[in-house]
């Protein structure tokens, strides 16, 4: 009997051990549990409002009855100020300017309005006169504007005469007070916000108190001032009378959109309600801080609204007196006004969730998420990326975790395939064929052709970067091939054909534009081409005196980090412009990065800009390679999202993460970018280069000669690069021939390439 009991116990234990660790069938997503589970209701819904004349004024006020008032400056010869009003922001009407009508007469000329504030009885107008001097004017009970005596510390140095070349003002000559915002207090006093302080004045302009701050953003509630802390990572509550800091609370998120701009009441992304609660807006949403509290409550989720769109910066936040918010945001196309109203009948979270996965954060994806959610408010896009700044996981850890999800059939709906084993995913049918879903005729054909597999398109990058070289036409022509580049460098009398680098730095510099040529078919290394590469690199290195800096301090000029940085640094671009170098190479990540190179090219005698030379011509670096998971439960939504990604709106937004792949977006940028009223400047110890936007003809040439000629994707293969660098020490020291080194590299990478 005892034996039977013992055997039964053993069997039971064995069964428990066998079955332990089996996956549970629980943890289904909320949306899959059907309608029986209660759903939390109530959410702020975003609405985009029209703006008067496609441009909001620098000053928007919310009236006590909740209507909006916008003061715009018409930049005509008279610098006329106009006023628009709207009851709810949907329709604007021109209105009586009121006291600001005579603002031009104050100075007898043009006045540039900076900010306007009112407490109902008194109106303050902050403006710059024709001499760019900031001034303040006041109107009581809608009477005429009178200019206040110039406050102490506001004096600007005299402006240089028209036509003369301006110089940067030394810090010691900068005025003490650079006003950006004004706010009117109930007692008639006013507050001026500067980038480093808030100043309280009485109604006549006498300074009463100063409060050191981290920005011009602030809000006032009765006798309490809320302002940015000096470290720009907290909100400080200050007693206006005593100047004492009552409270300091960390900002609700670590987003960098924390500086107040002069839009809206107080000109800040913060506002207080009647109870003294503070509301603060940033890319993560609108957050509320209870009076005296230290915890923020997010009332509007940035991820579900335009607040999270990278290209939009939050300008101002105002309450609409009905429990909602007006938020002004701006981007390269101008100012946008959003209205957030509470809807008790809307689920607090959208019922459908679309998941996007990437190894790293991606601005274009965030841009698309904002656009997509605006169009699909009942869908929540969850963007998850594995590598975070404070995380300990490596890329391989994240990929393995992702693969486990994919194997279980629970992977994300959309994958950003940068750094992921794309070939393997395609081979195993993980990715959906996009060729029927995307209109590939609207995308760059050369890029599409690269990603086609047997006529099907499983993945496509949303952006591309291109390595280019810049110099005289002769130098650029010689640099198209490594052997001719080596000859040209050797013939250069001063050894200044290229900027100095270390030999291993040269390997990395030309790795991107050469390594794709080393492989034939499926991962077979061409040792002969690799040997040729090494010989040419050595020749270039010797010609440029690279060996001379081997004994220099570690890290000097070694821009060849493992990410394959092509860039030779901005100081070398400046050197090229002054004739100190003959050729410069760099990666171009967008239209805004073309201004300075084209400026230098046009200044050079017979200057040229072309795709960077190497063994593999026409290289591009893909970013945000998108694929849709074949096992996705929301394929239609995923396709719709991908269409937004490749749509004109997202593609034409320059986020500095690469050129668009949409033909329409490129053509739009070619037309609009030269007309953008912006200048560019770079400076270093070598000097400074300034430039306006590139000319349309230059952009057109770049499109034809560089973007359309990009036919081969290249990314840094870290394993291969590391093996090449490790074996090359002996080669550069003359201990091995190029052929022996190439053979050693092939042997080292055998396992890697044959897996």
């Amino acid at each position, binding site marked *: 009997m005892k034996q039977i009991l013992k055997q039964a116990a053993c069997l039971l234990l064995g069964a428990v051990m066998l079955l332990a660790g089996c996956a549970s069938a629980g943890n289904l997503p909320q949306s899959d549990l059907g309608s029986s589970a209660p759903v939390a209701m109530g959410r702020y819904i975003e609405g985009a409002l029209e703006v008067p004349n496609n441009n909001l004024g620098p000053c928007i006020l919310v009236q006590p009855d909740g209507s909006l008032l916008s003061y715009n400056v018409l930049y005509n010869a008279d610098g006329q100020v106009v006023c628009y009003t709207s009851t709810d922001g949907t329709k604007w009407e021109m209105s009586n300017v009121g006291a600001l009508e005579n603002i031009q007469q104050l100075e007898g000329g043009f006045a540039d309005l900076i900010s306007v504030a009112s407490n109902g009885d008194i109106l303050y107008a902050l403006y710059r006169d024709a001499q760019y001097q900031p001034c303040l004017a006041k109107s009581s009970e809608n009477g005429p504007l009178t200019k206040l005596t110039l406050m102490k510390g506001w004096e600007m140095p005299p402006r240089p005469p028209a036509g003369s070349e301006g110089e940067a003002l030394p810090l010691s000559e900068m005025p003490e007070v650079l006003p950006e915002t004004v706010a009117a207090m109930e007692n008639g006093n006013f507050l001026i916000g500067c980038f480093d302080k808030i100043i309280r004045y009485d109604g006549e302009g006498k300074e009463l108190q100063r409060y050191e701050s981290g920005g011009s953003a602030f809000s006032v509630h009765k006798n309490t001032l809320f302002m940015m802390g000096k470290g720009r990572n907290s909100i400080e509550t200050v007693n206006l009378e005593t100047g004492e800091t009552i409270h300091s609370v960390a900002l609700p998120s670590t987003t960098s959109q924390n500086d107040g701009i002069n839009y809206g009441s107080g000109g800040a992304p913060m506002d207080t309600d009647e109870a003294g609660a503070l509301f603060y807006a940033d890319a993560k949403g609108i957050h509320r801080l209870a009076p005296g509290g230290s915890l923020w409550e997010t009332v509007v989720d940035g991820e579900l609204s335009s607040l999270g769109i990278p290209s939009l910066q939050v300008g101002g936040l105002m309450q609409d007196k009905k429990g909602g918010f007006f938020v002004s945001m701006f981007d390269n196309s101008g100012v946008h006004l959003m209205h957030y109203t509470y809807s008790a009948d809307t689920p607090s979270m959208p019922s459908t969730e679309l998941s996007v996965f990437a190894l790293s954060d991606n601005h274009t994806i965030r841009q698309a998420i904002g656009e997509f959610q605006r169009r699909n408010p009942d869908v929540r896009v969850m963007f998850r990326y594995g590598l975070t700044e404070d995380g300990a996981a490596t890329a391989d850890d994240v990929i393995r975790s992702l*693969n486990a999800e994919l194997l279980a059939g629970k992977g994300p709906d959309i994958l950003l395939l940068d750094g992921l084993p794309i070939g393997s995913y395609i081979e195993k049918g993980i990715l959906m064929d996009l060729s029927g879903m995307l209109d590939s005729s609207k995308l760059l054909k050369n890029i599409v052709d690269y990603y086609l597999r047997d006529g099907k398109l499983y993945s496509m990058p949303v952006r591309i970067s291109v390595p280019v070289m810049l110099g005289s036409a002769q130098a650029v022509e010689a640099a198209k091939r490594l052997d001719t580049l080596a000859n040209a460098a050797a013939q250069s009398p001063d050894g200044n054909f290229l900027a100095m680098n270390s030999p291993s730095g040269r390997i990395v510099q030309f790795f991107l534009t050469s390594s794709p040529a080393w492989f034939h078919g499926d991962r077979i290394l061409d040792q002969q081409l690799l040997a040729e590469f090494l010989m040419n690199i050595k020749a270039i290195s010797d010609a440029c005196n690279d060996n001379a800096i081997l004994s220099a301090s570690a890290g000097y000029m070694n821009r060849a980090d493992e990410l394959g940085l092509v860039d030779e640094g901005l100081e070398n671009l400046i050197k090229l412009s002054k004739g100190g170098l003959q050729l410069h190479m760099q990666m171009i990540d967008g239209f805004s990065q073309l201004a300075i190179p084209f400026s230098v090219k046009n200044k050079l005698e017979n200057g040229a800009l072309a795709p960077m030379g190497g063994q593999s011509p026409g290289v591009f670096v893909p970013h945000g390679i998108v694929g849709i998971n074949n096992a996705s439960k929301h394929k239609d939504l995923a396709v719709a999202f991908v269409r937004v990604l490749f749509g004109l709106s997202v593609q034409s937004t320059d986020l500095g993460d690469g050129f668009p792949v949409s033909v329409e977006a490129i053509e739009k940028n070619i037309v609009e970018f030269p007309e953008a009223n912006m200048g560019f400047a770079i400076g270093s110890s070598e000097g400074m280069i300034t430039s306006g936007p590139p000319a349309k003809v230059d952009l057109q040439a770049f499109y034809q000669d560089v973007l359309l000629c990009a036919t081969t994707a290249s990314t840094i293969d870290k394993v291969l690069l590391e093996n090449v660098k490790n074996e090359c020490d002996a080669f550069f020291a003359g201990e091995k021939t190029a052929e022996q080194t190439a053979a050693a590299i092939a042997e080292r990478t055998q*396992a890697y390439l044959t897996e």
Partner: protein
Amino acid sequence: MLVPFGDAVRRSFFTAMSGEFVGLKNYEAVLQNEAFRLASQNTLRFIAACIPVLLALSLLLALMIRAVRRRGELYKTAFLLPIAIPVASVVLLWTVFFHEKGLLSGMVEAFGGTRADWMNSDAAFSILVLSYLWKNAGYDMVLFLAGLGGISPSLYEAARVDGAGAWALFRHITLPSLLPTLFTVAVLSLLNSFKVFREAFLVAGNYPHKSMYMLQHLFNNWFTALDIQKLCAAAVLVALFILALVLLLQKLWGNEELS
């Protein structure tokens, strides 16, 4: 435990994601894969080099500890310490010793030699073997001590009475009596030999020097590349090999009785 392995066996006959039955194609692909051949070769070489040496060394240490009357416990603790050292500390130790700018390079340079990145050279395999021996010798020594403690002293007394010397005692009494223990120690050492991957991975990453590239590296990389079908097929082959080896050892040593 058996369910996941059963799933691996099942997956070895199907494609990774679509679940299409492919018969023995995965096995064929694995056996023809150069990386698998290299990894298998290295793993077998490692086992062949380490296990016999480890068994001999740990048995010798056990016999020496038993012979030492004073401070035997102290020596036992000293030999056991390496296995208690965390892997991360061992990796740090390796880096300090074997890096191009490490202690070993410094000593070599002091004697007129040239610095080298030892973990990226042909010496990498030897470092791996030495590290394995250093870490596991104490553990196996303790197992042998337990085995030695199980041998009846009367056998030795009777043999001495018959005029047997030390070698005869070892050959005719100790060794045969230790065969079951030898089997246990051999199997455990074989299983522990796979754990050396941890140090190799942490020091040299996914693709170490060719001589250190083991089966675990290959499996790890295949999982990262989602080559599950090859991974499962290779895992089944390795499991069958280990099972065969264990059964062979059991037949040779496991059921022997002291006659």
